[in-house]
């Protein structure tokens, strides 16, 4: 059974009465546990829209055409209430975005601790988890720094620490390296790769960067609101992934 499975996912944005944008035109997608998948495609093809639906930030359109389905660990989460979706995001998912990932008034550790707090972990336990997560991304010594005192790559690593800290079932990242130069980008990618390999962390990342795509187990290609190619897992990578899992 797939970890995350979507069928008939559609999303139409209504700009005005007449003017609508069909961002997703009926998408079927499946993410296996332990996979590291890239979603690629031209600008405006619906990558972010798909990621927002997979991450329960938006619900798929319920009522034109066949009913949408979104299964997380076998449970249909397509039409949950805002509160229920928020809870799943807090406890079972991790997020990394392109920019403005961190709360500027909080230190690195406090930013990571936010995720703990939302997942119901508080106080000393949260502090310990945050410091540990920062250690995993190589920023243990920057725990008390504000985002403005960190480089873009470091900020992105803090965001990754925050996404990891609750050991979520899946991490969703929307162009996490979009604002970084190629060296920083490689560092961040290496971190994702490492967590996927060593801990079997499921990761979905949206990217424009073919180097990032190449480093993933599988690349889902989108165009015009549809999936053009689901991609194939290389056999050796599959074996490596499953050996860890």
């Amino acid at each position, binding site marked *: 059974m797939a970890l995350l499975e979507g069928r008939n996912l559609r999303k139409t944005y209504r700009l005005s009465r007449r003017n609508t944008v069909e961002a997703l035109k009926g998408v079927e997608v499946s993410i296996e546990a332990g996979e590291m998948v890239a979603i690629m495609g031209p600008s405006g093809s619906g990558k972010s829209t798909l990621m927002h639906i997979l991450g329960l*930030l938006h619900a798929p359109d319920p009522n034109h055409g066949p009913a949408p389905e979104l299964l997380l660990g076998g449970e249909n989460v397509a039409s949950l209430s805002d*509160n229920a979706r928020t809870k799943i995001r807090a406890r079972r998912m991790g997020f990394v*975005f392109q920019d*403005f990932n961190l709360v500027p*008034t909080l230190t690195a550790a406090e930013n990571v601790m*936010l995720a703990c707090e939302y997942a119901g972990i508080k106080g000393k336990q949260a502090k310990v988890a945050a410091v540990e997560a920062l250690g995993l991304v190589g920023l243990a010594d920057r725990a008390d720094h504000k985002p403005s005192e960190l480089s873009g790559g470091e900020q992105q690593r803090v965001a990754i620490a925050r996404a990891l800290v609750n050991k979520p079932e899946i991490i969703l990242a929307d162009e996490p390296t979009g604002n970084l130069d190629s060296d920083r980008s490689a560092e961040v990618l290496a971190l994702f790769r490492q967590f996927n390999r060593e801990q079997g962390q499921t990761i979905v990342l949206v990217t424009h960067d073919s180097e990032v795509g190449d480093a993933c187990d599988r690349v889902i290609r989108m165009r015009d609101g549809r999936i053009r190619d689901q991609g194939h897992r290389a056999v050796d990578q599959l074996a490596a992934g499953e050996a860890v899992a």
Partner: protein
Amino acid sequence: MRLVRDLGRRKLRSGLTITGIAVGIMALVVFGSMANKMNALIGGGSKYYANKAVVSVGSMYSGNIQPLSLSDVKRVEGVEGVGAAMPTLDMMLSDTGGATMGTPEMITADIPGGDKGYETFKIDLAQGRTLATADADSKVTVLGSDLARKLNANVGDTVTLRDEPFKVVGIYAPTLTAPDKDAYVPLAAAQELFVKSLPPLIQANINPSVIATGIVVYPKAGVDPEVLKTRLEAMLGKDYTVMTGKDFDAMLGSFSAIFSMVLTGIAMLSLLVGGLSTINTMAMSVAERTREIGIKRAIGASRWRIRREIVLESAMIGLIAGLIGLGIGAAMTMLFNDLGRASGNVLFDLTLGTALTAIGFSTGLGAVAGFVPAWGASRLDPVTALRYE
């Protein structure tokens, strides 16, 4: 502490809002303290007048009090239901007393023991003793606390009241009401001072020992002062005024109501100005933090949590403003009281209740003002918020 840091991020705007509320709270504290003092004065009077009837000629509060004579006391004693009738003599301590604010300094006299044990209104002593029956013919006095401080007098000292030396035998503890500015003397001594204050021509025709300005009438146990008042009025005729506790309350109740209205007005004004200003500050701070709210919502902050965060921050603005306003207001009342004390004018009484009300009021105001922007923030779509420029 995160809250305080968030406020610090928008120093100028938060500072202006805090200043606005603080000014309102300061006004609230100062006027509230003044109202406390007024209400204490009125409350003290109300207690004094409870369960007795006071007879005078003319109206006591028109300031046009004419002396009555001791023969009136005999007539009053004969009325059914009267337990005791005691002549009193009240006069201004100085004829130039018009410069004082609040209650004037008075010389107050009665016959020690003349209440026959009916009097229930007792003032605690700070030093010495009260006037006793044996003092009837001596020039002794018990001073109210403010007057004692002004005259810098202690028990054993001699003070000059209307050019006559009086020996201080006692000093009352502060009541924060009118008696603090009184000098209590035996009736005979006051009668002498009273006559001396009259023009020489009249002096010659007056026997000091029959003069009084009022008669305090104590009803026998179980007799309603109001019923007694009707009987006294029937007997004395309309040249006399009979005042009971009920009359006193009716007369000064309206005074107290006006004061409460002024206070409520100030409170409403500061509510309006401070509240709108806080809503504005918080709405702007929410707009500035749209993306931050988007991030928080995305990684799992519930709507409720976002609302709470903003309401708490807003309440914090109110709390800080309240503390500052209270601090300045308290400093002002203390300063004015210190300045006034020398002349015996203590005008403010900042009670714990007033302080807590001011703080609670401003904190509540902040919290309520925060609800509007908090509601908006919690309804933001996380994805839209993340994209917000």
